């Protein structure tokens, strides 16, 4: 067992008790300190696959190792010390009478000393901007705040691997930035982040590696830049380009040849492509005549 991979799936297939096969022979290795995004249409097997990472589901065929441990031979509560899992719907986990207790709950489960637990909980709540609301009842919070609370209670556990299932659904721009900023910060500190998402701008901005799935199989395993250059994969999985890239594609006919992932990169690409000021007026009229409405 090489220690290079923190999570290693070998020919993992999963068939649900209802008879639906959601995964078909997925082989995948996740290295330490990767920021991996799973993308694909609904029902492509993304969530089923990540649920294997902390043992909630066990492979019906093949095997899956987390930190060298076969998930079939251990329990979810043991794996929860290595892999933190943040669910789409926060209401399935929130049950305490205050935000503060809720954040501490996971730490109590792991028998972390009270003083350390409180410090970690305070930090996590500050990071998601809920520290001031810590005495409130979780039901008094808005849906977006509850989602951040669920994320905070997971972050406080400081696991090596963090699985985020649709972390930014229903979040406004600021909360989205808070949550993703947090994930990026943990990634910098050496944690492995696994994210399931439909939001291509998140993939473009944060992920170091992206796995596109379709029909329970891995369609593409590459960097975000490589993914966005393969139009056929994008159409096959029903994915949308991130805004910066869509804009760049629109400008292609005007002579912009770049694959920018973020708006900053797009800006640089445009500046680099701009002709000398003398030719600028010519260019503008040229662009005006040539640019057609951007598809999508």
């Amino acid at each position, binding site marked *: 067992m090489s220690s290079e991979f923190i999570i290693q799936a070998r020919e993992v297939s999963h068939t649900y*008790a*209802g*008879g639906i096969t959601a995964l078909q022979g997925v082989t995948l290795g996740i290295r330490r300190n990767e920021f991996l995004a799973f993308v694909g249409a609904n029902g492509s097997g993304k969530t089923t696959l990540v*649920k294997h990472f*902390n043992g*909630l589901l066990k492979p019906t065929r093949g095997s899956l190792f987390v930190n060298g441990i076969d998930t079939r031979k251990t*329990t*979810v*509560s043991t794996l*929860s*010390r290595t892999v*933190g*899992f943040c*669910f789409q*719907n926060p*209401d*399935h*986990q*929130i*049950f305490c009478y205050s935000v503060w207790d809720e954040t501490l*709950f*996971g730490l109590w*489960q*792991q028998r972390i000393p009270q003083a350390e637990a409180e410090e970690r909980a305070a930090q996590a709540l500050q990071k998601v901007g809920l520290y001031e609301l810590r005495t409130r009842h979780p*039901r008094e919070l808005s849906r977006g705040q509850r989602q951040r609370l669920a994320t905070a*209670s*997971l972050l406080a*556990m400081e696991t090596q691997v963090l699985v985020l299932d649709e972390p930014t659904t229903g979040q406004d721009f600021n909360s989205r930035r808070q949550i993703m900023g947090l994930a990026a910060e943990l990634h910098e500190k050496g944690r492995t982040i696994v994210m399931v998402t439909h939001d291509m701008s998140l993939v473009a901005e944060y992920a170091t590696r992206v796995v596109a799935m379709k029909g329970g199989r891995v369609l593409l395993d590459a960097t975000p830049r490589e993914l966005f250059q393969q139009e056929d994969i994008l159409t096959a999985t029903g994915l949308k380009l991130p805004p910066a890239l869509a804009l760049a594609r629109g400008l292609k006919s005007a002579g912009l040849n770049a694959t920018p992932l973020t708006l900053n990169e797009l800006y640089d690409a445009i500046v680099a492509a701009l002709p000398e000021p003398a030719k600028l007026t010519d260019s503008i009229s040229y662009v005006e005549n040539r640019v057609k409405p951007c598809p999508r």
Partner: protein
Amino acid sequence: MPAIEIEYHKAETPIHRLHPITKIIFELVIFVIAATFNEPLYLFIMILVVVGIIALAQIPIQKFRYLKFVGFIVVFLIITQGVWFTSFGDFGGTNSPFQWHTLFYLYPAWLPGGPRVPFVLEGAIYGLALGMRLLVISLAFPILVITTHPSDLVTALSEIRIGAWRIPYNLIFVFTSALRFVPTVSREFDHTIDAQRSRGVEFEGYNIVNQVRSAMPLFVPVLTSSLVHAQDLTIALETRAFGAVENRTFIHEVKWGKADWAVSILLILIAIACILAVRNYGLGLLPYTPQRGF
């Protein structure tokens, strides 16, 4: 974790075509017959018949995953009846003095003061019979819900009338939406179990202290989200003017055909025959149980 999936399952079978009331009669007849017999052999035949009907209705086997829990209850009944059955003393109506068969002692002979707490064969058989009654009923109950479209059930129930009286529509709605909520709540349970296990809560194992401790993280989210669901439902109902008209009509009607007459009459005749067989001839009764000659 298996979900309780008692939901309408579409198929084209004779069972699906029957009127919902016929299926309700079927369920009632099953309840009555299961209550009259207490001999395992007769109940076993009943189970075979019900399984045959399930096969005829093409209900997928996965819908019956909850039977695992029924299995636990059956084992529990056999053990408890085996131990406690005889301790109720005299069973009037058994003519000949009856010989109990002790299989083994829970408190064995080699311990001081033993043997104590006999495990009696007849009690275990009676326990098995009780368990099989439960099994028959729990096998038969989902047939109505799985083979009947929910709106057909509502229509059929609202057509029941005695003179000018009808079942109030509110009541029917409560009944059908309660049935509808069973799989939903079951799914909520599954999701909550997943979410809490991911945070390190142990639901596995037989440690009683752990089980009690893990009840809070499990039941609070399920209960609150059920209440939220219910509230959402009331809002959705009110926006659609629920209860605005006194006499509700239905766009789709269910017909009571010849097959329904035939099946219903046959079922009722079978029920009467079974009751008479038990009452007059003592068929399908264990000889040492108090029901004899009721």
